[in-house]
C-alpha cells in the first residue's frame, strides 16, 4: 500500500524538507514505522518513551481523526492520505 503522508512544518527539517512523502504500510502504525525507518530523527519527536504517539499529536486518515477509526491499527489502502497535525490549535472556552 502506498500512502501519502503530510509532514507538519516542525518535522520537515528531519525529512529533507519534504512536505509530503509517499510511504508503504497496511496500517497507520506500519506507515509511521516506515516514516521512522526512512527518517530516524522523527522517532523521538513523534513517539513518547513508551513508543506511543505523543499526547499532543493528532493523526488523520483522509480527513478523519484516527481516534474515530481504529487508532494506530487503522488499516490504510493505496491512495489514502495520512496527516500528522499538532493537537494544539484553536478553541473557544
Amino acid at each position, binding site marked *: 500500500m502506498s500512502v501519502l503522508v503530510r509532514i*507538519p*512544518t*516542525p518535522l520537515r527539517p528531519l525529512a529533507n524538507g519534504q512536505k509530503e512523502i509517499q510511504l508503504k504500510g497496511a496500517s497507520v502504525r506500519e506507515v509511521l514505522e516506515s516514516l521512522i525507518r526512512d527518517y530516524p530523527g522523527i522517532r523521538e*519527536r513523534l513517539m513518547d518513551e513508551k513508543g506511543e504517539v*505523543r*499526547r*499532543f*499529536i*493528532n493523526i*488523520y486518515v483522509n*480527513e478523519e*481523526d484516527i*481516534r*474515530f477509526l481504529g487508532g494506530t491499527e487503522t488499516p490504510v489502502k493505496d491512495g489514502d492520505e495520512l496527516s500528522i*497535525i*499538532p*493537537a*494544539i*490549535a*484553536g*478553541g*473557544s*472556552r
Partner: protein
Amino acid sequence: MSNPSASPRPFPEDRKASSLMRGLKCRECGRIYDLAPVHVCDFCFGPLEVDYDYEAIGKIMSRDSVDKGPKSLWRYKHLLPIAEEPTIGLYAGMTPLVKADRLGKALGLKNLYIKNDTVNHPTLSFKDRVVAVAINRARELGFRTVACASTGNLANSVSAHAASAGMECFVFIPHDLEAGKILGNLIYRPTVVAVRGNYDDVNRLCSEIGGEYPWAFVNINIRPYYAEGSKTMAFETAEQLGWRVPDQVVVPIASGSLLTKIWKGFQEFSRLGLVDSHPDLKVNGAQAQGCSPVYQAFAAGRTQFVPVKPKTIAKSLAIGNPADGYYALDVIGKSHGQVEAASDPEIVEGMVLLAETEGIFAETAGGVTVACLKKLAEKGAIRPDELTVAYITGNGLKTMEALTGYLPEPVGIDPTLASFQKIVNPS
C-alpha cells in the same frame, strides 16, 4: 482581498519584549523558546506558555497599583503578555460580578455570584478579553493580518478588534452557525469563510492554513499570548470579591482553555500575595451532553479524553476535540472539582432561569453553566454556604434560535383600554 504572498513575513521574535516575560516554555517538556508567534513545541508538540518573571512583577504590582489602573482588564497588564502599552481593545473586561440572590434561592445557594461577560466590550462575550490581548501582541510582533478559527464569539471579537485596528481580517467558522453570530462578523467587513464542516474541521484546516500564510491566527500561532487574557476573569473575580478567592467556580468547557486559565489566574494572585496564600478553590466544569468529551473522561476516571462528534444547541461549546481538555481534567482533578453535563432542554431551562431570576440574557453556553451549577448544588457538590462564582461568557441575543418554541407568544390586544382589561382586570 490581498495576495498573502505579497505580505512580508513578520519578525520572528519581538526584540522589544518586556522584561516581565522571560520567554515561552513548553508545558510538556519544558523547552524554552523566544517570544515569537509560535504555539507548539518543535520537539514534542506540547503547548507553549508564557514564562513570567514573577519576582519582577511582584515588585511593581500590588492591590494599590491595580486600584489606580484603568477600569478594564488592562489594570492587570503586568500579568498579561504584551510588551508595550495597549492601543486596541482598551475597554474589555471589568464586567459586573453580580450577587445572584434570586438565582441562588432557586438553587438553594446562599452565596452565589455571576460573572457577567454577556456585557463585555465590544462584542458581548468573554472573547473580548483574549482578543484584546492577542491583537495588541500581534501588532507588536509585526503582523498586518489577523485570523481565527471560531465557533462564533471569537470571530465576532476578532472582526471587531481588527476593524478598530485597521488590520486585514479572515475569520473561519462552521457553516451552520447562528444567524446572529454570522451577522456579528459581516458587519465589521472581514473575510468570513464558512467551512462545510464542524468546528474541529475548521480548527484543523486553520492549523494547516496557518503554516502557509503569514497571519496572526489568534488562537493558533498567537495562542500562548491570547489564552492569557482569560486569566482576567479570575483577577476581576478576586478583586471584586474584596481580594478573595471563591470556594467554588463553575466554568463552561469548550477547548478547556478558559477553565485552566481561571485556575492559573487565582494561583498567580496567590503567588503574588494579592489574595490568600493557600486558597482552597474547587474548579468545576460544565459541558453540553451533546459534546462532552471532558465530562465523559471525568465520569470514567480517565486523565485523557476521547474526542466526540458534537451535536448540541450550545454551538459555542461544540468542540469535540478540545485542545486543552487534558489540562482541564488535570485542574479539575487537583482542585477536587467536578464536571457536569446538560441536555439541550436543560440548557434552555438554564437560560430561562438565569433570565427570570437575575435579568441576565445569556447565550446557550450560559444555559449550560446554570444547568450544571444546578446539578452540582442538587447533589451537594456545592454546599449552600460556599462562596460560588458561575461564569457566564456570552450574550443571548446571539443565539436566539435556541429559544424557538420555548417561550410564550406576546399577548395580542386591540388598541383600547377595554381590550387590555379583558386580559388584566384592575384590582
